[in-house]
């Protein structure tokens, strides 16, 4: 078989190998579509990619600058503002050219030290967890992917304020054992967990109101349920949404491991994407990475597409909106993210934690991972933090969140960047997916895939 396409016919061209597109590719291929699946990068995963440390730093230089316009790299007290693309040949030297402030030679030394262990890092720009009882885990198990991915149960869920960390009770035993809850609070929480765990309510109004009025939750207890369990972030959850989320969370507890979430080793999104791509290939899908979509011409039978490695005739296209027309992408929402390497596993050497930082009405989600999930070399930890808003307005907030959790540990390297969600308008025969959102788990990734699949499978769409 040649490594060139000569006007080969495919039912569906899928552009981008993020987790969403990969789930779609596998579903379509299993349903009999002849699938051509491409990515512009030389690696799988698109926005869900997982990198070695040098790979991640390379990404900071080669990233899509429309989507991630601003990115600050901190090494020790050195600040490097990576505001334009750069060559990746001599990575360290190139990074040093973006120097803005702080001690350059110490930064260089620190960086070289970290890079000596390059492949012991697994860094994801957009980390996510798997909910133990949800659509994604069911799909992984159903497709046999669960047999090959390795997971660890997330160990703790923390609510964080400037005063410090407090564990969110995760089980009945936890609630009873808690020393920070009064007896009355314990009873209220039990009532809430058991009532919502049975998914009985179909209430009106906001979830916050429901907690306050029906369950009489106030203060920290109210915030714990609203932010650390239902994970309200940007907008106010309706009572129904909140109840659904608590229901999912409570029912996920204790299925695998202690807590409601699983953390995949080697980077969940990337592993999920690769697993589904391989499954798609097993059923006949064709894969090309490091590929450029040069031209799409609509014709009677769909589209004629020109790639670097030849041409293909395709009936329909599924596309990550990040590939949409270079200059005019609509800007829908902005998320700011931080990736930090700590020189000390402060929350445990082999613990995985999800945290929520509340500060003056803002909510920051955090994830703490260690060598237990192959994220960092032993003796270090990796911390992710993210919140809605631009870097200009949220960087101090993210830094505060990281600072409170890191405690006595030093942040040896950190990267702060802003991700703008790119969207694209509906076009006949082209189905756009959506990019990863701010949620902490893969449920929305699954939903995004199903949404596109149901559009493709609608009887009135052109085949």
């Amino acid at each position, binding site marked *: *078989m040649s*490594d060139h396409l000569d006007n080969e016919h495919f039912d569906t061209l899928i552009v981008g190998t993020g987790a969403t597109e990969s789930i779609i590719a596998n579903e379509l291929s299993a349903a009999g579509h002849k699938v051509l699946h491409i990515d512009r990068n030389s*690696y*799988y995963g698109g926005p869900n990619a997982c990198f070695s440390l040098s790979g991640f730093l390379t990404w900071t230089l080669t990233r899509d600058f429309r989507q991630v316009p601003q990115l600050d790299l901190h090494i020790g007290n050195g600040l490097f503002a990576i505001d334009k693309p750069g060559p990746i040949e001599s990575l360290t030297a190139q990074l040093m050219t973006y120097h803005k402030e702080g001690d350059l030679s110490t930064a260089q030394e620190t960086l070289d030290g970290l890079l000596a262990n390059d492949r012991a890092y697994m860094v994801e720009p957009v980390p996510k967890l798997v909910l133990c009882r949800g659509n994604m*885990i069911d799909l*992984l*198990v159903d497709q046999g992917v*669960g*047999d*090959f*991915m*390795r*997971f*660890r*149960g997330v160990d703790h869920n923390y609510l964080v304020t400037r005063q410090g960390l407090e564990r969110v009770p*995760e*089980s*009945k035993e936890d609630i009873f054992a808690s020393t920070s809850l009064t007896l009355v609070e314990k009873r209220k929480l*039990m009532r809430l*967990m*058991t009532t919502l*765990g*049975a*998914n009985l309510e179909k209430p009106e109004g906001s979830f916050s109101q429901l907690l306050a009025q029906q369950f009489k939750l106030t203060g920290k207890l109210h915030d714990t349920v609203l932010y650390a369990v239902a994970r309200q972030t940007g907008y106010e959850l309706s009572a129904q949404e909140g109840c659904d989320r608590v*229901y999912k969370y*409570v*029912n*996920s*507890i*204790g*299925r*695998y*491991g202690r807590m409601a979430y*699983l953390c995949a*080793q*080697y980077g969940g999104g990337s*592993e999920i994407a*690769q*697993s589904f*791509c*391989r*499954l798609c*290939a*097993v*059923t*006949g899908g*064709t*894969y*090309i*990475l490091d590929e450029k979509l040069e031209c799409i011409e609509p014709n009677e039978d769909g589209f004629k597409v020109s790639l670097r*490695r030849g041409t293909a005739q395709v009936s329909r296209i599924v596309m990550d909106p990040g590939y949409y027309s270079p200059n005019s992408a609509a800007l829908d929402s902005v998320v700011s993210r931080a990736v930090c390497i700590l020189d000390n596993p402060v929350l445990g050497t*082999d613990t995985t934690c999800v945290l929520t930082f509340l500060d003056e009405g803002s909510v920051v989600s955090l994830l703490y991972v260690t060598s*237990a999930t192959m994220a960092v070399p032993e003796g270090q930890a990796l911390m992710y933090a993210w919140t809605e808003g631009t870097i200009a307005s949220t960087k101090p907030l993210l830094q505060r969140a990281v600072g409170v959790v890191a405690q006595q540990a030093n942040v040896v390297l950190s990267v702060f960047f802003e991700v703008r969600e790119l969207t694209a308008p509906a076009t006949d025969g082209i189905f756009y997916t959506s990019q990863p959102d701010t949620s902490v788990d893969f449920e929305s990734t699954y939903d995004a895939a199903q949404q596109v699949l149901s559009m493709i499978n609608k009887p009135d769409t052109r085949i």
Partner: protein
Amino acid sequence: MDSASSSTASPVPTAPEIASTFKILLVGDSNVGKSSILLRFTDDHFLPPEDTSATIGVDFKVKMYDLDGKRYKLTLWDTAGQERFRTLTSSYYRGAQGVILVYDVSSRESFEHLDNWVEELNTYCSNDDVVKMVVGNKIDKEAERQVSRKDGADYARRHQTLFLECSAKTKIGVQQAMEELVNKIVETPSLWRKQLPSKGTVSVDETVTSSGFGANGCAC
């Protein structure tokens, strides 16, 4: 098995317990015969050349292998066609104990491309001790040979890998290749002793019953 049969005089032959599971990969250019070697070894079957689509759908095949009274479970992984544009996933390589690098003795090009596969292997294989074997396939096509046996053996020596020539079509060498590879893996305990899942990892293939609140009762 009911209790009566186990108490009879003639011992019931029981399958030996599986001592370990080995993940073995096949890599190399398209068309060199990777899928054919896999099918020959696991099913002792050779697909007619015109029946190329038949290898679609092969994710991996399982074969039991007995050595010194111990039983090993071999999972042999095919490339799923992802070698065509060199897009094998890094997770394909992960956790492999053995890798078979295949070229076609009647294609010089496929032999020259071994370098790329070795490089990819070195990038993605998590374990440095992974056992590698270079295999020259299609030796039944003697008249069209473009790679001498010596060239193949020299290459293997330079890269410190095992080496064999075979033909998936006539089945010469296929069984021997697998045997040598597995024996070498068995002799390299560092490869598989530590494959026990580390403490705290969960596999999601089995359902663990809920100890949380659950919708199913547990109200207080």
